[in-house]
Every structure is written in C-alpha cells, then in structure tokens.
C-alpha cells in the first residue's frame, strides 16, 4: 500500500530531514513510527500527504508513483488519506460538527449523508454530545479527539496520525488506539508517529525507528500481525 523507495528530503536551507528512507507497508497494516524529536517523523508523514515532495527517491501508493501525480490530482489523492495533526488544526470559528464535516463537504457529499457520517465519527470518539460546541470550549484531549474524528469521517484507506495521544490520559489513549485498531480491521493502513513509549510498549505492533533522518529499523520482521 505504502512504499518508500530510497526517499530523501532536503528542506530549502539544506537540512536533510530524511536520508534514503526505504520501507513498505501492506494494506491493512498498522505501525508505529518513532524516534527522537527532530528525527523526521513529521516530515515522513508530510511526504505521504504530499505537503512536501521528495528531493530524490520515489513514493508509491498502491503501486502509483506520487512523483508523477500532477498538482491538480493532489486533492483527489488526499481524500483517501486521513490525518491527525500534531497540532490538531481545528477551525476555531466553526462547530465541532462543521469541523468534522469538512472532508465530506470538500468531496461533495449530500447533507443527509454528511450528518449521518459525522455523528458516527463523533460517536466513535465519544463526543456526540459536543457536536454544537466550538473547539475552544473543549479540553485539549477533546480537541484531539475531534481531530481524530475528522481524520476518519470519510473512511480513508490510509490513516496517518502525528502524536495522536499527546494530550490524552492513558485510558483515553487506549480507547483511541482501540479505535485505530477497528479501522485497521476493516482494511485501513494505519501509521502512527509517536514517542509515547508507554503506548508503544502496551501495543504489540510493528515499530519503525527514525534517527537523524535515517530509518535505522523498519520493523518489517517484528510484531507483524
């Protein structure tokens, strides 16, 4: 499903955030991406969102080389990916409902369908009673869960999460991970960047380790279900 092939990313200014990274993930696989702060975890996820383009090497999704994807096709590609951002990136002047509805609106879903799916997603993160609140009226953890609901509301084929449990207590993180597990079970490929060691230890999952932009262990032979 996801295939990094000798991919390097040099930021303007010369800093090489990813160095010859290669790994593969099968459809329906779930893995952690870990490493110290500044190791390149967010950069790797940005490559998958086409927020950044590789300096060299290839990135293949479902066999298609994203290097050859024209800019006009980027929105269409992004609709099959769900992302939970490190800073949850909610629209503060819109309700929780409207925030979660956004990925469906941009894809042109009819209103009744949007309502049904948004409520299902909010139910999944336990925030159904907050749908008419503004994000500022929510706690950090609740905002994070709104971000998660938005990432999964359109049933993406790939789910990326950057520190999704950063603001959550262990119990809630456990629930969120269980939610991600449910998505994995219906065939979604899930990649979670985190340095939450407790979380990693509790879950028996494949672990990819980045260090200074190098993939020192792609975990392909470890914890694979």
């Amino acid at each position, binding site marked *: 499903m996801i295939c990094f092939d000798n991919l390097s990313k040099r930021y303007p200014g010369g800093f090489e955030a990813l160095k010859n990274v290669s790994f593969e993930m099968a459809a329906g696989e779930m893995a952690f991406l870990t490493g110290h702060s500044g190791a390149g975890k967010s950069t790797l996820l940005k490559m998958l969102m086409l927020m950044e383009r590789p300096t060299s090497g290839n990135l293949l999704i479902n066999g298609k080389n994203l290097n050859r994807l024209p800019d006009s096709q980027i929105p269409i590609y992004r609709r*099959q990916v769900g992302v939970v951002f490190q800073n949850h*990136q*909610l629209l503060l002047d819109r309700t929780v409902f409207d925030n979660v509805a*956004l990925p469906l609106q941009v894809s042109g*879903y*009819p209103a009744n369908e949007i309502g049904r799916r948004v409520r299902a997603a909010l139910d999944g993160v336990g925030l159904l009673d907050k749908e008419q609140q503004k994000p500022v009226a929510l706690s950090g953890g609740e905002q994070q869960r709104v971000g998660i609901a938005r990432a999964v509301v359109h049933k993406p*084929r790939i789910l990326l999460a950057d520190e999704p449990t950063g603001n959550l207590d262990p119990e809630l993180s456990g629930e969120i991970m269980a939610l991600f597990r449910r998505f994995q079970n219906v065939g979604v490929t899930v990649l979670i960047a985190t340095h939450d060691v407790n979380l990693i230890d509790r879950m028996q999952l494949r672990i990819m380790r980045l260090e200074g932009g190098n993939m020192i262990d792609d975990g392909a032979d470890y914890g694979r279900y």
Partner: protein
Amino acid sequence: MAATDRPREAVQRGASGQKIKLADRWRGYKSHHRDTIRISLLKMMREPVQTVMTVAVIAIALALPAALYLTVENIQRMGSNFESSAQITIYVHKEAKAETIEKLQDKLETLPTVASVTYISAKQALLEFKALSGFGSALRYLEGNPLPAVFLVQPIVLEPIDLAQTKDLVAAITELPGVDDVQIDMQWLQRLHSLTEVGHKVALALGATLGLGVLLVIGNTIRLAIQSRRDEIIIVKLVGGTNAYVRRPFLYNGVLLGLFGALTASIMLYASVWWISSSIADLADLYQSQYRLAGLGFLRFLMLMGLGGLFGLVGAWMAVSKHLKDIEPK
C-alpha cells in the same frame, strides 16, 4: 507492494472505495453552492463596517458615471425636443408680387421634408410687432411698412436627429424665387450635439477609471479576506479541497459585494431622479412642454447589476489568482 482487493480506479476517485452516486454528487454540489453563498453573506454581516464601506465605495463609483450618462441622455432628449420646434424663417423679397408669393407657398408645401408652412403677410407682421413690442406709436412715424412678408416652415424631424437633412432643406429653399433670406438657428443645436457627444465620452472615460477603482477595491477586500482565512484554506486543502473549492467562497464574496454596490447605486440614482424630476416637470409645464426626466429604467437597472456582479467577479478573481497559490499546507 502488497496486493489490495479494492479496484484500482477507486484510488483515482479517492472516495475511499465508495463511489458517491452522480445524483447525490450533484445535489451535494448544489447545496454546497447554496451554503457558500449563505456563509459569504454571514461573513459579510459579521464585519458590517468593512462591508458597508466597501459597498458604499463601489456604489459611488458606479453611480457617478451612470448619473453623468443619464444627465447627458436627458440633455440630448431635451435637444431633440427643441429641434422639433426649430422653425425655418423665410423672408420674402419686398418687391415680390402676390403670385410669386403664392407660387412660393405651393413650392414650400410640396417639399418632401416640410411638415407645415405658415404665411405671415407684411401687414400682419407689422400688426403683431406693434402689439408685442410696445413701439406702436413710434412706428407711426415710419413711411410704409419696413417689415417683409414671412413664411414659417416646420421641417419634419427625424429620429435620430439629422442635421444634414435640415441643411439641405435650407439650401433648397434659398434657391427658390422670391426668397430674400432664410434663417434657422441651428448653431446651438450643433453645439448641443457636440456637447452631448463629449458628455458621453466623459461618462465612458469616468466609468472606465472608476471601474478600475471598483476592481481594486474589491480585489483588496478579497485579499484581506484570504489572509484572515489562511488557516482555514490550509486545512481545507489538507482534507482534499480542490483549488476551485477553495476559490469559490471568495469569488462569491466578490460577486455579492459588486451586486450590493450596484443595488445601492441604483437606489441612489432612482432617488435622485425622483427628487429632481418633480421640479423638472413643473419647469416643463411652464413651457407647455411634455418633457419629462428619463430615469434608470428596468433594463438599465439590470445592466448596472450585471456590471456590478461582473466587476465583483473579476476583482475577486484577480485577488484569488494572485494570493491563493501562496497558501499551501507546510
């Protein structure tokens, strides 16, 4: 690369393997447009000062050239009103015999562009002059009648006004036997004509200049709107919003501003015409004229609205194509 059981085209559609039915997609599209307009209106109402100021500037910039245009047009209509009363005065030779005068009258009446002919004999002319001038007693000391007989000729007036035709008529009459002199006061008509022509051009130039101003004002308002919604644009792009989707609310915003501006301009014009027209009507009645002020009219109201909307669209488009591409998620 792992195999997947989902059809490949689903990836291209990006709808996570579940296609949205075409009819649903169309319904979603329509309701999205409705929502976009509604949200644009709400956003404009949430910043009333900014909105009112922009709309007022647009309205004034549209109303000024339109008012000038209406003024010129009304002067033109007034001119053609006068033209119909532009008589040709023919002074008959003092020595002309009665039969020459009779023949002259026949000839004048058969000319193709003549509407009516009135004969005023020398005696009648003198009587009228005495009665009107108040020089009655002084004239008694004159030997005989110093006034010539006169024909008053009313030419047929064509729309649009054809000055050349009137000139030809004057030339033809001058050639007729028994005619001493022909007078027509056409100079001021000609002046009026060139004046209204200048007026039209000024209105056009003013319209073009102020139109450019409208574009810049709308462009600037949209630029500010884009900047204040930067975060939103980035998030929309990250969840798969196309450029067209991101653009749309700003284009609607521009069109709405233009339409509101044109509507306000129309109200201003209707109000001014209504305010002035009662005095004009009184004035016209004094001169026994049927002349009435011509207002904006429904057709030109629509034209003004169309123009406002178009300016709004173009201004917004300029701002959007300049500033939106800088905003990419990073």
